[in-house]
């Protein structure tokens, strides 16, 4: 979940104009549809896509079952936040929903074909010079580059794995800016965010890094060029303004490209061409040094817009970054066995487990109170550990329901909260409601949104994690109130 919500958060923070421009590109629309929307929202969009008239709110409400109210609210909220759906509240006619026109026409274009936007990438000429790269080569490249980044981060925690030098200074700066590492006296130290990052799935990691990249696009570009200046001796890139819309469109386009096919760089804008270098460093694309006019998307790129479920169910499509993905066996006696020889995965495991023996293809260890609390002190949460164990569970473990032994899961949580006798949730307290009705309905709305943490019905106050939608809701309430 963390990944799509990361992208979602980023997108939601964008102004409406950005959306308008983003939605002009069919691949972007396709990616947004596929990656960021709840299942119900996808169905709503498809039902409305070829509807000649706006969808009456009343019809929409009858179409969705009453029991599915929470899902409906979730879907509608996301759709409105991404500016895909707008309510048309013309007073004489009944209220109706309308799809964003740019979104709709791009999606129709994506489904039906046509147009001449070259938005799905222009394949390079077959006769272009230079050797072709096979899928295996690309996989190798992607893995090498990406693991270098991970090694760098793990290495900063565990000295013996330290392998600096493999990654470019731009990437290093980026990691620092994303607060995954902190430079202390020339030494990189991994942060809490860094641990979170490490324990994510590969696809989530890529997105997390890319979001940081997008957020810091201006500064990144300058940093990167500074490091490049020496090599390229070109000054004009320095003035380049990275346009986030173009960057996003490019990323989404990468997600719709075909693995093993080389694409022409001619149709790319300046920003996008420039991004190619950075993405090359991450291992997301391969830009052959001997053929600058072409690039290959790697598996990291082509799976950008696939969801976690698909990666799980289709092992061929996912690039298993840690060569021993799906190799952990956890027993009820807290012993842990992992079939792996990857130093990276061993290093990650060592973050929270007490490893005691290592064989050519197997490490074994134990989760102990000490090891877990050590991890907690570093800023790793119990949930992250549990998630990591679950996503990397051995196929034999997947047969169990639940996958991990519940006793161990509970114990990990207990160990975490042991030192920590309180639970802190940042957010907002809402109080002083005008009347009981207002309180009740607003609280109900917050609960449906899933932001409600605590409520006190007697005192008429409640606590929420996020407030933006509630503000809108309250504002809407106020305008509607006189009419009622």
């Amino acid at each position, binding site marked *: 979940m963390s990944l799509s919500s990361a992208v979602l958060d980023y997108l939601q923070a964008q102004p409406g104009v950005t959306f308008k421009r983003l939605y002009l590109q069919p691949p972007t629309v396709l990616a947004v549809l596929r990656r960021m929307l709840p299942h119900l929202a996808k169905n709503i969009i498809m039902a409305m896509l070829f509807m000649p008239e706006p969808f009456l709110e009343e019809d929409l409400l009858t179409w969705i079952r009453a029991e599915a109210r929470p899902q409906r609210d979730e879907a509608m909220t996301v759709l409105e936040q991404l500016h895909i759906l707008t309510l048309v509240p013309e007073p004489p006619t009944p209220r109706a929903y309308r799809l964003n026109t740019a979104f709709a026409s791009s999606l129709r274009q994506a489904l039906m074909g046509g147009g001449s936007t070259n938005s799905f990438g222009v394949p390079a000429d077959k006769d272009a010079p230079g050797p072709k790269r096979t899928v295996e080569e690309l996989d190798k490249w992607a893995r090498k580059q990406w693991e270098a980044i991970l090694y760098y981060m793990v290495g900063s925690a565990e000295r013996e794995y330290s392998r600096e030098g493999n990654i470019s200074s731009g990437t290093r700066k980026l990691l620092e800016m994303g607060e995954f590492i902190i430079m202390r006296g020339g030494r990189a130290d991994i942060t809490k965010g860094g641990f979170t990052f490490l324990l994510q799935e590969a696809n989530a990691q890529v997105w997390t890094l890319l979001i940081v990249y997008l957020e810091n696009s201006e500064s990144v570009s300058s940093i990167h060029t500074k490091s490049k200046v020496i090599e390229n001796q070109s000054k004009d890139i320095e003035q380049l303004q990275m346009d986030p819309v173009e960057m996003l469109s490019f990323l989404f386009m990468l997600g719709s490209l075909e693995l093993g096919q080389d694409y022409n760089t001619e149709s790319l804008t300046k920003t996008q061409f420039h991004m190619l270098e950075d993405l090359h460093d991450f291992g997301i694309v391969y830009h052959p040094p001997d053929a600058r006019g072409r690039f290959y998307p790697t598996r990291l790129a082509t799976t950008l817009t696939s969801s976690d479920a698909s990666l799980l169910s289709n092992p061929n499509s996912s690039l298993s970054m840690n060569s021993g993905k799906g190799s952990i066996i956890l027993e009820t006696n807290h012993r842990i066995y992992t079939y792996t020889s990857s130093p990276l995965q061993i290093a990650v495991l060592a973050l929270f487990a007490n490893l005691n023996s290592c064989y050519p293809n197997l490490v074994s260890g134990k989760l102990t109170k000490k090891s877990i609390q050590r991890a907690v002190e570093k800023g790793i949460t119990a949930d992250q550990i549990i998630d990591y164990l679950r996503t990397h569970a051995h196929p034999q473990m997947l047969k169990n329901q639940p996958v991990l032994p519940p006793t161990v899961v509970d114990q990990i949580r207990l160990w975490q909260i042991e030192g920590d006798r309180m639970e802190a949730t940042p957010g907002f*307290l809402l109080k002083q409601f005008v009347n009981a009705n207002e309180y009740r309905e607003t609280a109900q709305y917050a609960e449906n949104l899933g932001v409600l943490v605590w409520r006190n019905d007697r005192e008429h106050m409640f606590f929420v994690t996020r407030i933006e939608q509630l503000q809108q809701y309250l504002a809407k309430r106020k305008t509607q109130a006189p009419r009622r």
Partner: protein
Amino acid sequence: MVKAVKGILVQCDESIKAIIEKIDKENGNTFILEALDDENLLISSGKINELKARLKSVLTDTVKEHEEPESNSDNNEMR
């Protein structure tokens, strides 16, 4: 008019709440914005880490934990 207060909701049991209140009192009432009920407090946003650290030190001082041998008594101790 509805009022929204930005802060951090702290959910804990009553004994911990008492300790937090004590810490708050000793530090010039800078932590707690509002005591919501017996198990919930609203803490001002920037103070949570400091509060956690102080709470921990109070707890380690007061609660004597019984040492366990690391090897084979992993989960019995906590229950």
